């Protein structure tokens, strides 16, 4: 029964060739990175079309995929999209609303994250949502779950079908942020001493206990995610925190500079893949 393990030897050989991990972050350009990263997965999982990667682990396992498709027929996140729509339409105390900050259009997913050259920082959609509230004299929302996830779910839903297209400007500060995100991705951390890439590149398609590890490609398309284990929606940065804790590393604050830079890098790596949030996960 367990003879399939022998075939893993081939994968171990391949893992030695995670080219990106072996170089200094500044050795390659974003365009070169994107090619290496995408080729890595397409060679590893031949026949899986690029857009399939938007579906996480379900792109790799037919049985899990069927169960998931059944769940998506009656999506558990539907009420949250409605709650988010209500938030979108609610007026602030000053009479304005979210539409005033987002040029009247909730379909904003493809515009984030972006490099704000003036402030020299990465701006994510969640950050922009809270900045909208604060600039209108309203209280910001918590970043991991709840109302912000509801609103993001509505905005993502309205944006379905937009393609990921995060530009990394040829600007020293923007490159610094991108390279910081990239280094974060390939750096070992925590008592278990794993990098993100150890689980989501080298071990993608393998099981950690009974959990099928999703490929890093497409990791940023489906957010926010309704996770059965959470019993609610969560944001991408909540997931980053959870993955940090799995290796017994300290999780960082959602929307910290490190996580925003990480999102900048990671989303760029999924350029060309359609946004399909919100989504459901085990």
């Amino acid at each position, binding site marked *: 029964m367990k003879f399939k393990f022998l075939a893993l030897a081939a994968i171990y050989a391949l893992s030695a060739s995670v080219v990106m991990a072996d170089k200094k972050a500044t050795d390659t350009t974003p365009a070169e990175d994107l090619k290496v990263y995408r080729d890595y997965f397409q060679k590893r999982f031949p026949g899986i079309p690029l857009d399939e990667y938007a579906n996480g682990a379900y792109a790799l396992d037919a049985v899990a995929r069927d169960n998931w498709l059944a769940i998506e027929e009656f999506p558990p996140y539907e009420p949250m999209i409605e709650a988010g729509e209500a938030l979108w339409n609610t007026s602030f105390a000053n009479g304005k609303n979210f539409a005033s900050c987002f040029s009247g259009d909730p379909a904003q997913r493809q515009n984030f994250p972006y490099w704000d050259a003036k402030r020299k920082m990465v701006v994510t959609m969640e950050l922009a949502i809270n900045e909208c509230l604060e600039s209108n004299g309203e209280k910001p929302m918590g970043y991991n779950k709840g109302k912000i996830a509801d609103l993001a779910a509505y905005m993502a839903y309205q944006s379905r079908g937009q393609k990921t297209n995060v530009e990394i400007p040829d600007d020293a500060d923007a490159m610094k942020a991108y390279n910081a995100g990239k280094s974060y991705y390939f750096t070992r951390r925590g008592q278990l001493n794993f990098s993100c890439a*150890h689980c989501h590149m*080298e071990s993608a398609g*393998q*099981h950690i206990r009974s959990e099928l590890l999703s490929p890093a490609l497409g990791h940023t398309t489906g957010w926010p995610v309704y996770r059965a284990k959470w019993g609610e929606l969560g944001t991408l940065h909540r997931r980053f925190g959870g993955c940090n804790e799995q290796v017994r590393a300290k999780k960082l604050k959602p929307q910290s500079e490190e996580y925003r830079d990480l999102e900048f890098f990671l989303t760029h790596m999924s350029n060309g893949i359609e946004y399909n949030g919100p989504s459901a996960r085990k």
Partner: protein
Amino acid sequence: MRNTAKLATTALTLAALFAGTSMLPGVAGADDASITKGKEVAYDRKKGNCLACHMMGDGASPGDIGPPLVAMQARFPDRAKLRAQIWDPMVNNPGTRMPAFGKYQALSDSEIDAIVDYLYTL
């Protein structure tokens, strides 16, 4: 000479075949308490959590990131080598995905010794 080599190979093959069925002679020096403790520590999610990556013994729903841990005594006749693999697998393979349980103090020395005792029964 040739016969000895052949015998050794046969022994190894037999050891591999019978591993896990406790048909091998007992592990010299390891007492049952240590073996039991080693199994507990290896299976405990907050300790070794070896099942996250390895098929081993009767552990339920093991992962498949690492190779199955079978015929350990035959494959690792040098106990120190097996222990070193758990203490710091990066020595063997700098790119390894296996955590360095000893070096990063995820497990104590005595816990690792107990795990080795348990592994030798597999």
